[in-house]
């Protein structure tokens, strides 16, 4: 298992228990608690509701997991959600035949994400600027661009079919939830079954050793930012479809929700350690928390405090785990 590459033999089972397993138990406790507190919580309708709501940030969290595994960070994802959304919706407004417009909108939205990731990756690998600064700059550039492009107003009046992507259900399951599951399955396979996946862990765990063992670290880093940007764009398109409009203020502060999901899921900000399953549970933990508090009519100010405390506890957990492992 490459996820524990840097830990000793003994640490493995302990790491497993307090890591994914621990966070999984935390999620179960949370679910049990809310199902006692609100009669509406554990209904099929609400479970699908949570999966739909969480899908947007959970999909971005997959890309963020790749980035954080290489000890990087991507703060531009929230702005990218907005920018890719307004680009895709504006392409959709061109008088193309429907199928072509749909395809062009999807491709252009995703391209924006990939290009943005490539741009960040080049600055990080070629010009050796820290990911935090590069993506912070990119965040304000993309947000500003989204406002400039739309003159601050939403793009609306889109063809009805566009809402299929975000609002249709297949066998009662919302389409974004299905896309989320597919993305997680693919990411699991890439991360745990391919050479690229092993390289991602290696680059984050010990970049020097990775380089010496012949891994093209720049290429790996470039790739994870392209993956992250593309997935943020995918989420941006799904969100635009849910809103049936391109909103330049969409995805505000999503980067924090996404990073929180990844960190709560047990991925170390120092890179090399973490898992995609953990991220999924982390995203769900935060999504369920927000939903449960809303169902119980807890005010938004209290929710912010509770969310912060949960993130702190999760990181504390992570620290303790490292100490046990050492």
């Amino acid at each position: 298992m490459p996820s524990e590459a840097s830990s000793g033999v003994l640490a493995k089972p302990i790491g497993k228990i307090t890591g994914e397993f621990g966070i999984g138990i935390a999620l179960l406790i949370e679910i049990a608690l809310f199902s006692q507190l609100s009669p509406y919580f554990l209904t099929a309708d609400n479970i699908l509701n949570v999966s739909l709501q969480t899908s947007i940030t959970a999909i971005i969290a997959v890309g963020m997991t790749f980035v954080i595994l290489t000890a990087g960070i991507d703060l531009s994802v929230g702005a990218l959600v907005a920018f890719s959304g307004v680009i895709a919706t504006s392409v959709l407004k061109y008088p193309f035949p429907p199928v072509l417009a749909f395809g062009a909108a999807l491709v252009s939205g995703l391209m924006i994400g990939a290009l943005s990731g490539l741009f960040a990756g080049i600055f990080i690998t070629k010009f050796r600027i820290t990911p935090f600064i590069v993506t912070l700059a990119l965040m304000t550039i993309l947000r500003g661009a989204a406002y400039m492009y739309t003159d601050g107003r939403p793009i609306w009046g889109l063809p009805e079919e566009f809402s299929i992507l975000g609002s249709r259900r297949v066998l009662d399951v919302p389409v974004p939830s299905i896309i989320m599951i597919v993305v997680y399955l693919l990411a699991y396979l890439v991360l745990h079954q391919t050479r690229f996946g092993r390289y991602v862990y290696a680059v984050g765990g010990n970049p020097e050793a990775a380089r010496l063992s012949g891994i093209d670290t720049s290429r790996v880093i470039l790739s994870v930012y392209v993956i992250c940007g593309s997935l943020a764009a995918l989420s941006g398109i799904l969100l635009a479809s849910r809103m049936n409009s391109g909103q330049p203020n969409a995805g505000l502060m999503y980067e924090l929700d996404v990073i929180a999901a990844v960190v709560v899921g047990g991925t170390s900000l120092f890179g090399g350690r973490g898992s995609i399953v953990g991220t999924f549970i982390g995203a769900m933990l935060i999504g369920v928390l927000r939903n449960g508090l809303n169902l119980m009519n807890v005010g938004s100010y209290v929710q912010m405090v509770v969310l912060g405390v949960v993130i702190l506890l999760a990181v504390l957990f992570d620290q303790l785990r490292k100490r046990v492992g050492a």
Partner: protein
Amino acid sequence: MKRFITACLIIVLSVLGCMKQQQHSASKTIGVSLLTRQHVFYKDLEEGLSTAAAKEGYELILTSGDFDLGKQSSQIEDFITRKVDAIIISPVDSRGIGPAILKANDANIPVFTADIAAQEGNVICHIASDNVAGGRLAGEYLAKILSGKGNVAVIDQPTLTSVLDRVQGFKDAIAKYPGITIVADVNGEGRRDKAIEVASDILQAHHDLNGIFGINDDSALGALDAVQQFNRKNVNIIGYDATPPAVDAIVKSTALKADVIQYPKKIGETTIGEIRQYFSGASVPKVVPVEVGIVDKEALQKASTP
């Protein structure tokens, strides 16, 4: 005789000339720096200012900060240099415009704010939509649709004072109907993506929900998205601002039933009215609320077919 007539003419002409000059000095020049000249709302506000000023014989110098505080500040400095008689500002930034207003205060030029208030400096009068009245109209309309009973929710944004006023008005109106309960008041942050999320949760928690008040159109449209995505039939939504996408949704007979509408033209006219009051030496209130209205499908269709 000729000489006498010439003398008379000279006297008459010079008196006329003096009178004309006097009249000229009585005419006032007003410097205006708007937030933008692009948006429909501000175009209408500008039209209100222009027509009212033309009626009073005031000369307007119309400029716009275009969302740029630096640009707006220098426009106001230019007004001060030109020694205008009054300045109207729709601040780009309520706090940041302070120093520019203080400079105008030092030059003894009266400052009026329209639509957006300033937080620093001496402003003679602030003219803006009556948000409390707008919220009240929304509440009354919703109560009417619900025949005075049901469960309603507010998609709120409690960090803005204008929104606090809207919600206060809404709650005041609903309080008159004992059959209506406000079961939830959640923060949608005034954004459509966040509003969908909180509205979805409200719909889960309250299967018997009949009404939603969105404090702006993004909140109302986000609630509409959620209601449509969960296929809920008996929820009525009231929005605020009557933006084009909201008007479209109302006309299409969706769950969005009506929208509070502001009258920017009236804000412009009222601003000139208050300046006239001030010039005439009468006392001017610190804040002048401008009336708002509510539009539903019927009203919108009537408006589009004159």
